[in-house]
């Protein structure tokens, strides 16, 4: 059986890029086979004779060997008429928008000779505006930040599984017929299905927020007036809308301004990953977090309280964290509400000092309208209703204050939100036969509908079913007609950002395979006419913004957004009686007794739509550091109770009729008696997603997002878990240093960071050193106070520097290739420790330990202070990696790029060498970008401007934790401090392992936490001793 076929249950053979291409033939060869012979020749027809068989096989073998001995004929075609603006060798950037459910993120896409190769955040887009530390006297240029999902979405464009020709059936033959043909027959298919006016027809669409799709959905409604439109997303803000509806009488979307909040209470809410508008939220939070060294009042630093079960990144950056099971959040919210004067039943008994501190801080902040409470979207509607009421209460507490609010409520337009009730009703009607035809737009309902709905069974019974999907996913496998949807980088389209700003999607490339956009699809279905996506969008926008002239339109296309089109805050008034009625009908649920299951969105692959993305699968979860798997995360105490002794021991989680077996992972700081499982794994259909993790959607219920009580039992066997960090404690070493704000300010003369560090005489040198006093001297500063560990830098680097995916087995062996990794440490006791993150790129030591030991001088220093790798010279002794105290060097143990799918070659950054087997590699401070800037400067007869060179990690970072630039302090060269010099001038600046006298060019700014005076000062207490926590 093929390793690709969904039926393959061979667990001992995990699927990943490299081994797959050893197992499966080169797709090019298959394609060639297809074209060379008449249809069916490549597979033996029934009853084939021996002679015929041998003929065909012989030809195949001959052909196969031909590809080996003959150089393929290649044509190079020059531009006969060069397109405007295209200069070969010079990349162009285009603004576009990445839609993700109801969200839309602004992107800037780099195009190298027509190939989209790299994604950045769009600084003009409200959802991706990054925060940056101010420099001396001036603010930095606006910059776009990005999330790992945005950055990795470019890999999805080149997903070889999107190619219908190389999709294989169970017997390893190309799937027949190639599904691209369906597009040509779509109008016929719809006519042939005899859908009438839509009776018995339903559309199951993913959630969206797009004027054009909404317009065409309405036209669809006009064409099929009796058809039903159901919207379903596995992860959605449904509960949030229900909560605001309970308070305001209509569903409104809360738009948060974290930068204005001085006290934030996050209830099961991860502002960094997993919730809507996360990039902007993280940036805004960082703005409120930023610590100036000397003059500033400590009140200007915000304070974050997190209440959650599973450790999230928000828990990591929180000043205080209370671990509660997901089902206890309701009771906790009710407790806070009661304390603030909102009547709600179901309050519980929680850590009194914590509650007191939260309430006091919220009330203080409320006097200036600077308090904010947020709740995660998997919490039930009642929690959101209470949170909305609390925020209203805190905002209107003092009517004299006219400061801007921390949360605005807006009425959304052009948006359809998931409704679980509608889905349940749809499945029931599909079962009963009321619905006979189903058109599925986007999503993967066959995979991600709750386990208590037999969606697949109902789907298979339908006489007519059709789906429009991004790739051949599980849904596609169960419908009669599959149509491939274009990637957003191949599409014209539009979207509304979280705050309502109109955003434009423009294509970077013609569709690689035969595919159309959702708008085109809906248009064909409703009108039978095939209209280009551009025309559909243009038509919508003529209605939206009026007929604008071509220049104004081009401005919008150029910027990616239509400025000033955000939603206006809707008049929202808290009606107490309505809320009370709602609370009476929807009481706060009692916390579950016994073991509880919480299903979370994956920190790497979101709800599973990115499951076929190798970069994201190999991206370590920022909390658990697990790659290529979902795990059952439990607290150490619960692990002890279950009798778990080793990493990866399997447990069976049973909810109702369904159960899955998962490797257990002990996670310090996790709530007791709760097991947390990430969604999105265990998908069939993709060569990467295949056999990675287990599908936790089967445990989900259609009634609520929280599962409640489950049974968890230890079962036989251990699962191989590929974690990139096995040791959780810093062992008391001064690697990641920090202090609390109060203590830090107290030590006014000598601002102290802990753990303490030994100083070293820099003059102690065995060999003479270079002075590095002239010209550009590149340096980096990483502010640990701003970093939240979101992983965007790691993916940005992978994309920029052509870093290969090595697969689960190699990752487990410790051979991951990431050039910038994020270290995660726990401090304190195992029950409620603190979690800290530290990004570690190559430190570019001036006195580099790696350079002295290389026998062939393959790693050397250049005059700009960069530690450079000469791949061609490297013979691979790995001595440098052994001698690197920061362990940032990565070795090509195999030829990791050998098995790359052909189409991935289009993704490669042409300015970065693809490394071969047997050579060492590491972070280069994006030397290709430095050289680009220097060439530009030279052509312009000027110097490289401060901020002109951004490393990929820096450019992606939403919170501006990474600052890069020239650090030459020679006043003739740099009359004023560059931004990085200014940042490095901070008292918090230190160099990791300074006592080794390696003189790194990267430095860190210590983390400053802002704990409440009434709660235990967490930092000082536990800082001296690192704790053993694994």
């Amino acid at each position: 059986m093929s390793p690709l076929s969904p039926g393959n249950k061979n667990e001992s053979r995990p699927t990943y890029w490299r081994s797959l291409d050893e197992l499966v033939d080169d797709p090019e060869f298959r394609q060639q086979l297809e074209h060379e012979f008449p249809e069916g020749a490549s597979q033996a027809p029934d009853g084939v004779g021996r002679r015929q068989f041998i003929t065909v096989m012989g030809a195949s073998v001959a052909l196969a060997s031909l590809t080996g001995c003959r150089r393929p004929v290649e044509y190079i075609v020059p531009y006969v008429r060069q397109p405007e603006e295209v200069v070969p060798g010079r990349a162009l950037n285009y603004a576009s928008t990445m839609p993700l459910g109801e969200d839309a993120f602004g992107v800037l896409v780099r195009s190298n000779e027509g190939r989209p190769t790299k994604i950045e955040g769009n600084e003009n887009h409200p959802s991706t505006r990054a925060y940056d530390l101010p420099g001396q006297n001036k603010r930095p240029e606006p910059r776009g930040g990005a999330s790992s999902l945005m950055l990795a979405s470019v890999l999805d464009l080149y997903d070889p599984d999107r190619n219908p020709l190389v999709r294989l059936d169970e017997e390893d033959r190309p799937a027949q017929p190639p599904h691209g043909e369906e597009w040509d027959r779509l109008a016929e298919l719809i006519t042939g299905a005899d859908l009438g006016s839509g009776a018995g027809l339903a559309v199951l669409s993913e959630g969206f927020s797009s004027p054009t799709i909404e317009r065409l959905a309405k036209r669809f409604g006009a064409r099929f007036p009796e058809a039903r439109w159901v919207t379903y997303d596995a992860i959605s803000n449904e509960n949030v809308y229900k909560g605001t509806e309970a308070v305001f009488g209509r569903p409104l979307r809360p738009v948060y301004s974290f930068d204005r909040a001085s006290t934030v209470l996050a209830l099961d809410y991860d502002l960094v990953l997993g919730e809507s508008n996360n990039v902007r939220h993280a940036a805004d939070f960082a703005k409120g977090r930023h610590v100036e060294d000397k003059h500033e009042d400590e009140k200007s630093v915000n304070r974050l309280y997190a209440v959650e079960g599973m450790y999230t990144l928000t828990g990591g950056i929180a000043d205080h964290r209370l671990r509660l099971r997901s089902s206890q959040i309701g009771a906790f919210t009710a407790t806070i509400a009661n304390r603030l004067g909102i009547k709600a039943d179901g309050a519980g008994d929680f850590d009194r000092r914590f509650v007191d501190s939260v309430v006091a801080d919220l009330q203080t902040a409320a006097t200036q309208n600077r308090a904010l409470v947020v709740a995660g979207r998997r919490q039930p509607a009642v929690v959101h209703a209470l949170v909305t009421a609390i925020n209203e209460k805190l905002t209107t507490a003092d009517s004299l204050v006219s400061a801007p609010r921390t949360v605005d409520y807006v009425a959304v337009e052009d948006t359809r939100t998931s409704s679980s009730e509608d889905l349940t009703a749809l499945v029931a009607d599909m079962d009963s036969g009321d619905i006979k035809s189903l058109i599925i737009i986007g999503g993967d309902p066959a995979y991600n509908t709750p386990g208590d709905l037999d969606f697949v069974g109902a789907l298979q019974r339908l006489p007519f079913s059709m789906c429009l999907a991004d790739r051949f996913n599980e849904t596609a496998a169960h419908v009669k007609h599959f149509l491939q949807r274009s990637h957003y980088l191949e599409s014209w389209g539009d979207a509304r950002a979280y705050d309502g700003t109109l955003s434009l999607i423009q294509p970077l490339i013609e569709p690689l395979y035969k595919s159309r956009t959702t708008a085109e699809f809906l248009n064909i279905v409703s009108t039978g006419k095939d209209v280009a996506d551009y025309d559909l969008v243009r038509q919508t926008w003529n209605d939206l913004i009026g007929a604008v002239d071509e220049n104004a339109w081009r401005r919008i296309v150029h910027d990616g957004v239509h400025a000033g089109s955000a939603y206006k805050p809707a008049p929202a008034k808290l009606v107490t009686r309505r809320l009370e009625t709602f609370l009476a009908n929807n009481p706060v649920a009692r916390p579950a007794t016994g073991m509880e299951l919480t299903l979370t969105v994956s920190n790497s692959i979101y709800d599973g739509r990115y499951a076929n993305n190798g970069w994201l699968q190999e991206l370590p979860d920022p909390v658990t550091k697990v790659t290529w798997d979902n795990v059952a995360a439990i607290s150490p105490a619960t692990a002890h109770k279950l009798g778990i002794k080793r990493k990866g021991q399997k447990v069976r989680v049973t909810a109702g009729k369904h159960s899955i077996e998962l490797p257990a992972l002990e996670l310090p700081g996790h709530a007791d008696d709760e097991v947390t499982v990430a969604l999105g794994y265990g998908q069939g259909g993709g060569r990467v997603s295949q056999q990675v993790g287990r599908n936790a959607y089967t445990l989900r219920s259609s009634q609520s997002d929280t599962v409640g009580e489950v049974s968890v039992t230890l079962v036989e066997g251990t699962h191989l878990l590929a974690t990139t960090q096995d040791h959780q404690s810093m062992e008391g070493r001064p690697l990641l240093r920090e202090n609390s704000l109060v203590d830090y300010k107290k030590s006014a003369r000598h601002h102290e960071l802990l753990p303490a560090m030994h100083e070293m005489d820099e003059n102690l040198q065995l060999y003479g050193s270079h002075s590095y006093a002239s010209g550009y001297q590149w340096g980096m500063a990483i502010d640990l106070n701003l970093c939240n560990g979101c992983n965007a830098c790691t993916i940005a680097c992978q994309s920029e520097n052509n870093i290969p995916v090595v697969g689960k087995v190699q990752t487990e062996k410790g051979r991951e290739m990431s050039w910038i990794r994020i270290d995660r440490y726990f401090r304190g006791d195992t029950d409620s420790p603190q979690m800290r993150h530290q990004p570690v790129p190559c430190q570019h030591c001036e006195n580099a330990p790696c350079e002295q030991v290389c026998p062939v001088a393959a790693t050397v220093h250049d005059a700009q202070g960069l530690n450079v790798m000469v791949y061609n010279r490297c013979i691979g002794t790995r001595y440098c990696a052994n001698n690197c105290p920061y362990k940032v060097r990565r070795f090509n143990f195999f030829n990791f790029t050998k098995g790359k799918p052909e189409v991935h070659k289009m993704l490669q950054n042409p300015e970065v060498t693809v490394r071969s087997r047997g050579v060492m590699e590491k972070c280069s401070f994006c030397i290709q970008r430095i050289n680009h800037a220097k060439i530009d400067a030279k052509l312009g007869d000027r110097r490289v401007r401060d901020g002109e060179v951004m490393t990929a990690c820096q450019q992606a970072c939403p919170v501006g934790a990474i600052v890069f630039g020239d650090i030459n302090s020679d006043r003739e060269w740099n009359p004023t401090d560059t931004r990085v010099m200014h940042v490095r001038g901070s008292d918090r600046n230190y160099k990791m392992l300074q006592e080794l006298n390696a003189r790194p060019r990267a430095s860190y700014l210590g983390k400053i936490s802002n704990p409440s005076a009434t709660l235990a000062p967490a930092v000082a207490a536990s800082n001296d001793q690192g704790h053993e926590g694994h």
Partner: protein
Amino acid sequence: MSAHTETSEPPLITGTQSFHTVSQRISEVTEARIQGTPKLWWVLMVISLLALANLGASIAYLFWEGIGIWGVQNPVGWGWAIVNFVFWVGIGHAGTLISAILFLLRQRWRTSINRFAEAMTIFAVICAGLFPGIHVGRPWVAWWMVPYPNQMGIWPNFRSPLLWDMFAVGTYFTVSLLFWYTGMIPDLATMRDRAKNKIRKISLGVFALGFRGSGKQWQNYEKTYLILAGISTPLVLSVHSVVSFDFAVSLVPGWHTTIFPPYFVAGAIFSGFAMVMTLAIVARTVYKMEDFITLKHLENMNKIILLTGSMVGYAYGCEFFISWYSGNDYERFAFINRATGDYAWAYWTMISCNVIFPQIFWFRKMRRSILVMFVISIIVNIGMWFERFVIIVTTLANDFMPSAWDYFTPTFFDISILVGSFGLFLTLFLLFLRFLPMVAIAEIKGVLPQADPHFYEEKH
């Protein structure tokens, strides 16, 4: 030699030997026909060849796929290949020590064992030299380590201990080979003179370099041998010191220690003697050489094993003390981690094999028991392999950055290449036993009672 010394010191060679019987006993081994080769030799040879074939296949696969087939990873960039390298270089110490240092110290008991100890050195260094060549990521360009003038003006990095290492081992091999060959010239001449067929006569004649045994030739020969011994002596100390620089010059806690050079040399002599012991016992059993390799020789070697083993034990203790005394937290952690961390099993294997077991040689009876010394010699070699494993792997697995710590697990190919290197070593050694004089004929004659100019006078 006067009468009273003769009574106080037992003869170095036992049995009734004349000059002729010495030539006869040693040369006949190399002159035997196929039928005359002992069965045990064939058995060992077949096993060795299988292991050697395994080495070839493993290396072929290694070159084809890349060193990822081993267990090496981040942060343990050096695994068994370098462990094996240091192990074999260590083995290669005893030969030259016996030949050169004991020669200069006039320890005449060395004559019985020096030849095959030297051969062992050569073969061990060949095995050792194999590993740095194959452990690099791109073995086809490993020669870039060699400084040669080229059009690009690129030279190797002379600051790198790996480069020093290459010179040190290369020099040691060259000198050891010359020393071994020079010492063999009179014996080759003896064998040439005894040869019956033409091919043998000519080939041995070529290698004997026309040695006829004239007084002038003996004088030149002795002088050359003495000079080579003088050159070799510092090399014995330098080669493993330089090997230890690979570690000592780095800044990794647990490697960065000044004790490494003497400690490595003591360890090398220790393991080298243990290996000579193993081979001597095998050789004297297979070829019935008990008269030439007597219990006295073996007992002397056991004394050296006891001495060097204790030196190594002292070094282990000293390392621990210094790591505490230095006040360096990383250093302290590295050593405590060795003894109590994930690899404690390897550490305690090393301590028991190298320090505890050899203490049995304090007892004369044990020093003279063939079985005991054979077992101990093997235990010592296991222990010394583990010493290198402990130094290399446990240190790298847990250095400065706790976030990068990982556990090294060897793969099938790690094991097969180690086994294969023994195959290479034993194949070469068995061929040596079969085709070259395993004991120095001329030197043995020199220590026979008959060699004493007054021998016949006293008899009468």
